[in-house]
Structures are given as C-alpha cells and as structure tokens.
C-alpha cells in the first residue's frame, strides 16, 4: 500500500508540474468565460454605434416612411437620387449604407439591397427585413379590400414570449431557462468526454512510455503489476480532479466578478425572481413591467440566464460529475492501460482504439440528442449502460433526472468498472513484458485467461 502511494505521488507530481498542465488549467476557464461573456458584451455594446442609412426607391414611393428609426439607426428616405451617384459619395455624406428597394419587392423577395462598406449587423438586417415584410403583408391584405382593416390589424398584433416555470415537490415555482439547461448539458457531456479521453489517453501513453523505456522491468522487480497500474491510473485521476476543481473555483470566481462588475447593481436578480411569485397579481405585474421598462431588455435576459444557471442543483451536479468522472475514467483508463501494455509503440494502438472510441462517440452524440429531447428512451438507456452513462447521464442531469435512475445507473457503473479493472489488470500483467510481437484481440483474450 505504501508503495502504491509512492507511485501515485510520482505520477501526480510529474504531471502537475508540467508547463502544459499549468497553462491549460488557467487558460481553459478564461476561454470558457470569454465564450459566454464576449457575445453578451458585443450584444450590449452594439447600442453605442449610431447608423444613418439612406433609403432609395426605384421610381415609386411604396415604402416611404415604412422603416421607422430606432435608437441606433436612422433611415433617411431620399427622393430623386440615383443609386449610382450616391454609391460613390454616401460615406462622405455621413451615411452608413444605402438601402435600395425595387418596386418588384412585393413579388420578388430579394429585390432589395443594402449597400455598405462594412458587414452590417444581423440585428439591423433583421429589423429591415421585418419592417419590409410587415409592410408587404399589409399591402397585400389591403388588396383584399377588407373593411376596418387597420383596426383589425391593430387587434391581432401580438407578441409572445414563453416563460418556462418549473414546479418542484414543495410546490415552489422556479424560473428556468431551457437554454441554460441545454448549455449545461452540453458543457457537462463534453467535459466528461474530454476528461475521460484526455486522461485515459494519458494513462495509455504512460504505460507505453514505461514499457518502451523498460522502466517497467525495474519497477515490476519491486512492486506488483497491479500496484503499478492502479498507481498510475489513480495518480492521473488526481491530476484530472485537481484540474477540475481549479476550473470550478476559477469559473465561480470569474462569474462573481462578471456579476458584480458587468451587471448593473439595481437588484436585477430580485426583480426577476419576484416575477414568478407574483404571477397572479395583475397590479404587481404592471409594476414589474414598469420597472423592467427601465432596464435594457438584453441585460434583463442576461441576468435571467445567469440566475437560471445559478438555480441549477449544483450540489447534485458536482457530486454526479465527480462520481461519473472517477468511475467512467477508471473504466476507460483501465482499458487504455491494457491497450498500452499490449503494444510496443503508440502507432500500434490505433487498431485497439477504434472499438474503445466508438462507445464514447455514441455517448457524445446521444448526449447532444439529449439536449433536444431529455426524456427520450435512447437517452434513458444510454444513461444506464455503463459504457455511455458517464457522458449521457451528465447531459441529462440539468433536466431533472429521478433519483432512482441515477442510483441504478451508478450501481451498474460500479459493478462494471470493477470488472473492467480486473480484466485490464490481467491483460496488463502479461502485456507489459511482451516485446516485439504484434498483439491482436485474440492474443489479449488469451492473456485474460492466463491463471498464473
């Protein structure tokens, strides 16, 4: 036992001290955070740039005044100006671009152009498209000569935004965002995949390194093969967990910083949280609506997502993550160790890698499917089968999985990983001392049944 700890220590220390480890550990959360934060920042910063756009119509005035000015774009309708002339001078005239509309637009959907020096933002395009579309629809309706059309139009104008609420056992209602659950499902499934693969492959490389450098002979003359194998697997698992915890702390740290600096301090959180509780009260609703009017809608949306992320059952998620990481990792790492022991160099591993990779790839694909449909039976079964459950179950957990399912999945996982470790140890013991022979699955099966 004492020797195993010496081995674990070496495996851990040599890896944690590597520059690549330190860089990855610090950079990954920053990268993650920037992926989440940057789009929001860009979205919020868009307001700042004011654009003036010239609108020119070809020999008609069907769309005069149709596109209303917004707070960051002004549409100037120009008459008796030729596009060809303005094209050369619009920039010096202070225009961001020219919107050129042909009268065929009513029948030909693409008979409109936005000419500009820069790539126009999606939001602006959508706004123009929507405005024109509405106008064309209105004009087409007008052609039917319906009485009181204007009034009818006003009446049917609606806007819908689905609010998702979840009721837990105690009857309390929580605001959730499916978007966040999906993002988390994806994040966890993918992280699991990465961790199992990266660290499992590290085990394999470590075994091959020891085998090719013949270190293994020296060590096997001091400790048992199983001790060496488990020491390596556990040492690398600790490296993975260290990285994972540092990532969690850094992410929480970054999230806190973002929350306190980027978001305005006028209690957005309380505001959005109070909405569900007061759903039924019309008075309050009006009050809230009035209040929200003061906040930019993007910020409110961001804050809502943020709170939804914070409302996830983090305790359960972290517990499951660590459990599935350890067991899933042990399962795959022991297979990787067995493969590493059976070959003479890394290029030979490929024929063995494919069958190991396939369940992981399937798991990842099912995990992505899980985000669209968390309750599907494929997701359910894949979250039970131990080869895929670490990844698929992690993808399901943000969507509230019944506890009994988690328990069954975990129990199956424990039994399976023990069986895999046991088999891998048998292959490993024979494999590490075999040189110069091309190993096949059949050969490994034979090693598995060796008794001595």
């Amino acid at each position, binding site marked *: 036992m004492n*020797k195993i700890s*010496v*081995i674990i220590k*070496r495996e851990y220390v*040599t890896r944690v001290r590597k520059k690549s480890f330190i860089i990855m550990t610090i950079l990954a959360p920053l990268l993650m955070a920037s992926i989440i934060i940057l789009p929001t920042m860009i979205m919020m910063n868009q307001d700042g740039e004011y654009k003036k756009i010239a609108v020119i119509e070809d020999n008609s005035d069907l769309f005069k005044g149709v596109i209303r000015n917004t707070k960051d774009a002004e549409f100037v309708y120009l008459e008796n100006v030729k596009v060809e002339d303005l094209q050369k001078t619009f920039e010096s005239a202070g225009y961001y671009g020219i919107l050129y509309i042909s009268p065929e637009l009513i029948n030909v959907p693409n008979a409109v152009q936005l000419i500009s020096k820069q790539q126009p933002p999606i939001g602006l395009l959508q706004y123009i498209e929507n405005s024109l579309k509405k106008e064309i629809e209105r004009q087409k309706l007008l052609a039917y000569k319906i009485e009181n059309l204007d009034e009818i139009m006003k009446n049917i104008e609606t806007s819908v935004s689905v609010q998702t609420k979840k009721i837990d056992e105690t009857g309390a209602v929580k605001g959730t965002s499916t978007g966040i659950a999906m993002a988390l499902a994806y994040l966890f499934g993918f992280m699991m995949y990465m961790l199992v693969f990266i660290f499992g492959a590290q085990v394999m490389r470590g075994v091959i*390194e*020891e085998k090719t*450098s*013949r*270190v*293994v*002979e*020296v*060590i*096997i*003359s*001091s*400790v*048992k093969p199983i001790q060496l194998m488990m020491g390596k697997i556990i040492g690398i698992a600790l490296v993975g967990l260290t990285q994972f915890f540092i990532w969690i702390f850094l992410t929480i740290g970054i999230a806190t910083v973002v929350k306190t600096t980027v978001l305005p301090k006028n209690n957005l959180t309380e505001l959005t949280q109070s909405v569900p509780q007061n759903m039924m009260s019309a008075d309050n609703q009006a009050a809230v609506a009035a209040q929200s009017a003061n906040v930019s809608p993007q910020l409110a949306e961001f804050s809502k997502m943020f709170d939804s992320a914070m409302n996830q059952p983090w305790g359960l998620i972290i517990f499951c993550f660590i459990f599935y990481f350890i067991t899933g990792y042990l399962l795959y790492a022991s297979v990787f160790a067995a493969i590493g022991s059976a070959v003479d160099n890394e290029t030979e591993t490929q024929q063995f890698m494919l069958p190991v990779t396939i369940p992981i790839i399937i798991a990842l694909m099912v995990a992505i499917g899980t985000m669209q449909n968390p309750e599907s039976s494929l997701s359910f079964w894949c979250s039970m089968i131990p080869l895929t459950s670490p990844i698929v179950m992690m993808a399901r957990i943000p969507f509230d999985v019944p506890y009994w399912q988690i328990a069954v999945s975990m129990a199956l996982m424990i039994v399976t990983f023990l069986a895999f470790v046991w088999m891998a140890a048998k292959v490993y013991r024979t494999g590490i*001392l075999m040189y110069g022979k091309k190993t096949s699955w059949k050969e490994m099966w034979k090693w598995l049944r060796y008794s*001595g």
Partner: protein
Amino acid sequence: MALFEAVNVTKKYGDQLALDKVSISVPEQSIYGLLGPNGAGKTTLIRIINQITGPDSGELYLNGKKLMPEDVQVIGYLPEERGLYKKMKVGEQALYFAQLKGLSKAEAMKRLKYWFNKLEITEWWGKKIEELSKGMAQKVQFVTTVLHEPKLLIFDEPFTGFDPLNTNIIKKEILYLRERGATIIFSTHNMESVEELCDNITLIDKAKTLLEGSVHDIRSQWAANEYDLVFDGDVKIEGNGDYNILNQQKEGNKSIIRLKTISSIKTNDILQTVLKSGNLISFNPALPSMNEIFIRVIENRN
C-alpha cells in the same frame, strides 16, 4: 553455502521453450556469470529470479528457503535495456526507485549522496535523463540498483555502453560490492570480464545448460594439453612424435611458442627436449580464454 539456487527451472512461451531444466547454484559472496549467445534464455532466467515472471516448473531458493515475493527487497536488478524515465530528473528518479524498494526518503537521500560522490556524478542530480549519454544514464541506473544494499545483485549486461574507463570503474564497484558481502549474478557477452570477475559460470544455449562450474576448473578442463613456452632470443622448435607446434612467434627479443602434446608424454620430458633449444624463461599450461571456450562449446553443439 549457496545463497541462491535454481533447480530444474523450465519456462515456455507458447510452444517455444525458453529454459529447459536449467539449474544454477550461486555460492554466497561470489560472482556468478550467466553466459550464452543471444536468445539463449539468459534474460528469461534473470526475470524468473527477479520474479517478474514465474517458471512453469522448477524451484528457486534464497538462503535455503523458497524464494518469496517479499524477497524482491533484498534483490537488486539492473536490466539489460536501461529502464529510466527520460523526462525525469536524475535525483528525483533515483529517490523514486529507492522508495519503491522500501527505503525511507531520508535514508535514500543519504545513500544517494554517498554513491553519487563515489561515482562522481553529483553534478547530474538536477539533469533529466534524456540530457545524459547512454553511459551516464547507465551509471545512474547502477546506483539505483545497488542503493538498497541488496544481498543478491543481478546485472543483465552491465558493461554494454560503457567506455573502457567506466567499464573499469563498474568492475571495481562490483568487486567492492562482493567484498562487502553481496552475491552477484551477471550476464554478459564480454568474456574478458568473465575471466576477471566471475568465480563461477553457467553457459546456456537454446534453453539448455551446456557448461557449468568454476571459471578456473573450466579453463583447466579445456586446456587440452597445450603449453606456452617463452625463450630468450630467436628460438625455433620442431614438432616430433610427442607434440606438435601450433604456433611460433617473436615478440621483441623473446620467442613465444605454443605446443600441443599428442602422446602421453610427461611435462618433465617435454622440458628436457626443449631446454636444449635455448634459454627457457617460462613454461605454462595454456589456459584457453573464456572466449575460445565459449565459441568452441557453441560450435561443437551445432
């Protein structure tokens, strides 16, 4: 008394016989040579002694008791292909292996300092193995092998990769270790080192023992009635019915002659005939070198 004994050890890899009823007996505080051409089964035997792999049949005894897994603590093993982590620093690596052999960190540190000083490799402590030459790495490995002061030391080809200077240093250390009570088994192709170091040898070929015994006895046995005579000045001898002249050569102002008796003539009678030819300086039975014996034994077999 034998410190280590292997009795009728047999090992098969699949259908291939790697060792066929090989027995060795290694007296305490002696140096035992395992000789044989490549692929003879030496490394297999060494691995079995180290309990890296088990024999199919046969017994192993250490100090008269059956060899047990715990005994690895009193065995030191220097494998043929050096096994060190390339990316690890010399000092850390030596400490690691010492701890795996059961030494405490402090004790390992103390002993490492002593050995690093002795072999003059202290300045390599912070270097990575990949920065060292093959011979340098081998010295490090030698230290890690002997550090826990094992009673039984097993060196698989300890001299390959060393320059003559370092070969000598390692030879000296091996003799010193024996003096301090260690028993040493080593395999080698370097027959010169066998003559210098080994008390006993076993010659294995194709899984079988071909020759076994003390180096001195074996060389006398193979002497085969040959004698070396050295004369002052230029001397020539003719062969007769009792002996043939195998070789005559001049070295400086000496003549060296090798003769082989072909009848049952006594050495006294030979002397009487050759003394007439000139001034005899020395007369020795010609002991064949281990190299010659090795080649002859293997060739005879084929």
